[in-house]
C-alpha cells in the first residue's frame, strides 16, 4: 500500500526475567484508526513504549514512511511526529492550558516568554478542533475530557502524524466519549493516524478501521473491523471462549436491607431514593459526575448528607463515618483501589484484616495466627492468585488487587456491599471472576449496590437499575429486557443531548 505510514516488524523486548514482547508486528496507514487490543499484561503498553522511544527493542525494526528509524529516546519519537495521550491526561494541573500546550516550545522574545503570543496561538489551535476552552484556564480545573483535548492540541502543536490514545475514554462519560470520537474522526480525515488502546469494545467498533490483538506478549492477528465481532475479539484476546462471562444466578429477593429516602448532599446530589433487598444486585448507573460515587460515599458515611434518611433493615440510622457504616453491616469497595482501597506496600494479610483487627485480637494484642487464618481463608474463597498472604499488594495484578479489596470488605461480614466500578481497569479474565464472586454473594443473601458505567455489566448483572442524571435519580428499571439505549436516554442530560446530536451531525 502506498499510504503505509508506519510498520513495525519482529519487535522483541526482553525485561529482566520476562519476554515482554516477542515477534510482534504492527502497521498503520495514513488517516487510519487502528485499535490495539489485549488483556492487561498482553504487552500493549510495552509495545507503545517501544514506539514512543521509552523502551528500546532488543530486536526488530521500525519503518516510518518506509525508512528505518532507531527510536533511541522519547525526543526522537516526538521529532518524527509520534505523540501519546494518556488516560489521566493532565500533564501540569497547576499550569494554564496554553502553557500545557506549548511547554518547552513557548513563543519567546529574547530569553523571555511571550505570553500574549503563546495564548493567542493556543486559542487558534483549540478553535481548530472545536474545543471551547480558554487558553488561560488552569488545566486542573477542567474536566478530564477537556484535559484530554488539551493533550490532543498539544500533540497537534508538535505536528504529530501518529497519535497514540491510551485508554482515552476510561474516565469519560458516554457523551464526552462521543465528543472525543468526533474529534478523533476529524483528525483521521485530516490524515492523522491514530493507534487506539481501549478496554471498551464500543470504542473499538465505533471508531477503529482495523484491530490488532496481542496476547501474552505475542502477536495474535490483525482484522478489519467489519470482519470481526465482540465474541471473536474476546476469544482472540483470552485465547479461549468465555461461555459464561456474566454468570448471573437467579435469586428470589428477600427482605429490604437498605433504603434511602430523599437523600441530598448540597452541590452533589438531591432527593435520591432507592432500595436494595437481600439477594439482589442493584445497579446505580449514569454518566461520570452524575453523583453516583457521591451517593455511595454518603451511604458509607465517608461524606455527610445534608438532608434525607437512610434505613438499614427498616431502621432509620445516622451514619457519620465508614467505621459506623461497617458496624451497621455496610461495606464499600471504593472506586480507586490503589489510592482508596489498599495500602499498596502492605501484605495481603494486613490489608484484609485492617477493618477487622478486633476479631483478630487476643485481648488488646493482634494475634498473628488468627490474622493469618482469616486472610488465608478469604484468599482461598476468592481465589486470589498470590504465593501466600504475606505477599505485598503492589505485587499483584489489578484483578487480584481488586479481589483483596473485596476480601477486606467480606471480612467484616456485611449485609450490604456497595461496589463502586468493580471492574475498572481489570483484565477480561479477572472481570469474569469478579462477576462470579458478586453472583455468589447475592445468592448467599447479601444485598449488592453496584455503581457502574459499563453498560454490559449493568444490563447483565443487575436485577434492577437506577439511573442518575445531574445529581438526581432519573429512571428506575427492572433489568429484564432493558436496552442500552433506554438507559442512556435517562442518563444523558436533555438539553446537552440535543446539542450533542447536532454537533455530531456537523462533525460527520
Amino acid at each position, binding site marked *: 500500500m502506498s499510504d503505509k505510514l508506519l510498520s513495525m516488524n519482529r519487535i522483541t523486548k*526482553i525485561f*529482566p*526475567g520476562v519476554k515482554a514482547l516477542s515477534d510482534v508486528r504492527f502497521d498503520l496507514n495514513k488517516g487510519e484508526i487502528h485499535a490495539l487490543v489485549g488483556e492487561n499484561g498482553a504487552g500493549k503498553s510495552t509495545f507503545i513504549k517501544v514506539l514512543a522511544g521509552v523502551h528500546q527493542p532488543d530486536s526488530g525494526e521500525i519503518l516510518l514512511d518506509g525508512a528505518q528509524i532507531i527510536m533511541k529516546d522519547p525526543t526522537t519519537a516526538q521529532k518524527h511526529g509520534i505523540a501519546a495521550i494518556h488516560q489521566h491526561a493532565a500533564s501540569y494541573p497547576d499550569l494554564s492550558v496554553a502553557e500545557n500546550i506549548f511547554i518547552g516550545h513557548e513563543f519567546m522574545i529574547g530569553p523571555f516568554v511571550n505570553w500574549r503570543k503563546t495564548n493567542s496561538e493556543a486559542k487558534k489551535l483549540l478553535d481548530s478542533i472545536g474545543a471551547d476552552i480558554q487558553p488561560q484556564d488552569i488545566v486542573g480545573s477542567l474536566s478530564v475530557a477537556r484535559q484530554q483535548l488539551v493533550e490532543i492540541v498539544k500533540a497537534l502543536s508538535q505536528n504529530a502524524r501518529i497519535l497514540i490514545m491510551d485508554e482515552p475514554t476510561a474516565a469519560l462519560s458516554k457523551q464526552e466519549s462521543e465528543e472525543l470520537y468526533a474529534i478523533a474522526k476529524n483528525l483521521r480525515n485530516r490524515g492523522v493516524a491514530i493507534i487506539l488502546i481501549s478496554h471498551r469494545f464500543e470504542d473499538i467498533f465505533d471508531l477503529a478501521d482495523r484491530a490488532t490483538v496481542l496476547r501474552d506478549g505475542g502477536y495474535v492477528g490483525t482484522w478489519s473491523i467489519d470482519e470481526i465481532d465482540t465474541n471473536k475479539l474476546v476469544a482472540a484476546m483470552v485465547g479461549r471462549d468465555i461461555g459464561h462471562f456474566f454468570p448471573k444466578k437467579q435469586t428470589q429477593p428477600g427482605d429490604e436491607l437498605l433504603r434511602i429516602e430523599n437523600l441530598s448532599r448540597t452541590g452533589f446530589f438531591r432527593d435520591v431514593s432507592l432500595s436494595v433487598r437481600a439477594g439482589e444486585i442493584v445497579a446505580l448507573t449514569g454518566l461520570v459526575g452524575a453523583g453516583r460515587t457521591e451517593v455511595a460515599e454518603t451511604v*458509607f458515611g*465517608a461524606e455527610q448528607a445534608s438532608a434525607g434518611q437512610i434505613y438499614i433493615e427498616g431502621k432509620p440510622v445516622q451514619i457519620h*463515618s*465508614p*467505621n459506623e*457504616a*461497617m458496624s451497621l453491616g455496610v461495606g*464499600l469497595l*471504593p472506586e480507586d483501589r490503589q*489510592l*482508596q*482501597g*489498599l*495500602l*499498596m*506496600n*502492605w501484605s495481603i494479610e*494486613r490489608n484484609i484484616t*485492617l*477493618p477487622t*483487627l*478486633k476479631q*483478630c*485480637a487476643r485481648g*488488646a*494484642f*493482634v494475634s498473628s495466627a488468627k490474622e493469618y487464618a482469616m486472610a488465608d481463608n478469604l484468599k482461598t474463597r476468592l481465589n486470589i492468585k498470590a504465593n501466600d498472604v504475606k505477599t505485598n499488594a503492589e505485587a499483584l495484578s489489578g484483578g487480584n488487587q481488586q479481589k483483596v479489596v473485596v476480601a*477486606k470488605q467480606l471480612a*467484616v461480614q456485611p449485609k450490604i456491599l456497595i461496589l463502586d466500578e468493580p471492574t475498572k481497569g481489570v483484565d477480561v479474565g479477572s472481570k469474569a471472576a469478579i462477576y462470579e464472586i458478586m453472583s455468589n454473594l447475592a445468592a448467599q443473601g447479601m444485598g449488592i449496590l453496584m455503581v457502574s458505567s459499563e453498560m454490559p455489566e449493568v444490563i447483565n448483572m443487575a436485577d434492577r437499575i437506577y439511573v442518575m442524571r445531574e445529581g438526581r435519580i432519573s429512571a428506575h428499571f427492572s433489568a429484564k429486557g432493558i436496552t442500552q439505549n433506554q438507559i442512556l436516554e435517562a442518563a444523558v442530560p436533555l438539553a446537552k443531548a440535543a446539542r450533542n446530536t447536532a454537533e455530531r451531525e456537523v462533525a460527520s
Partner: protein
Amino acid sequence: MKQRLKRILLSWEAMLIVVFAIVCVAFNQQDASRQAAGLSKKDVFNLASVIKSMRPYMLYSFMTLGIALILAMGDIDISAGASAALSAAMLGILYKTMMDAGVPSGLSLALALVGCVATGTLCGAANGFLVIRFKELFPMIITLTTQLFFRGVAFLLLGGGTLTFKNDKTFDLLKTLYNTVTIGGISIPIVIIVFLAFAAVFYVWLHLTANGRRIFALGTNSKAAYLSGVRTDKIKFTMFTICGLLSSVTAVFFVGATSSSIRADSMVGYEMYAIAAAVLGGFSTSGGKGSIVGVVISLFLFGVIKIGLGTLYGFADSMVNMSVGVILILSTLLPNVAAQINAAGRVRKRRASSLV
C-alpha cells in the same frame, strides 16, 4: 524461620546496634590511647561514667516518643519544645502562686505537677484540634505557628524573667528526678529508668496492639485507612495530645535537671533533637514506618556520640550538634544509596543472564 532470622539481622535496628557497637569500641580505643599518652589519668569512657553522663541527653527522650507517634502518622510537630517550655513555666507559676496563697508546699507541688502535665496535654490537644479541623493546612505550618504562640504565652507568664526557687526544700524534690539509683553496683539515672518504662509501654502499644497497627495504616495511606473503618481524626487528635503530654514529662525532668530555674526560652530546639532521634530510629516524615526499639537505640547512640566527642576529643557543643546534623542526613541517605546500588546491580545481573 531462616528468612525471619535474616530479616531481623538485616533490620534497621540491627544496623543501629552495629553502629552503636562500633562507636563504643572506637571511643574505648581512643580512651585507652589517651591514657597511654598520658593525656588522662584514668579511663573516662566506661560504662558507669557513660550511663551517668547520659542524663542531659535523655531529657528529650519522652518528647522523642511523642514525635515518633506523630511521624508514624506522616505528620510532624515542631511545637513540642515550645509546649514543654510552656508546661515548665506553668509548673513554676502554679507552685509560686499557691505558695504565695498559703497552700501547703507538698500539695502545691503536686497540683503544680498536675497543672504542668495538663498544660502540655492541652497544647497537644490544641495542635490536634487544629490539624483535624483545618485539613487544608499542614501540621508543619500549624505547629510552626503554635510554637510561637506557646512560647509567647510562656513569656507572658514569666514576664520575660527567670523563675527560681532557691533553698525551697519541697521544690528541690524535683531535683531528685535527676539523681541516680544504684542497681547492681552501677548507678543508673532515674530518667533512664523512667524512659525505659515509657518506651516499653509504647513499644507494646505501637507494635503489638490493634491501635498501633491503625496508626501505621493511617501513616501509610490515610484515605484508604479511613475507608477501612479507621477513625483517622480521632487517632490524629489523640496522638498530638499524647505528644503534648510527653513534652510536659520532658519539661518536668528538665526543671529537675536545671536546678529548678525556669525560663521561657528553655528547651529551644528540643523538638529538632527529638525529630533527629526518631528519624535515626527508623521513623520517616512520610509516615507509615519506624520502631520504638530503633528510637531507644538511637537515643543512646546520640548520647554516646555526644559524650564521646565531648570528653574524648574535646569537641565543643557545636561539633556535637554538627554530628547530629550529619547523622540525621546520613541515616536516610545511606539506605537510599544502598538501595539504588542494589537495584542497579540486580538489573545488570539479570540483563547479563537473560542475554546469554
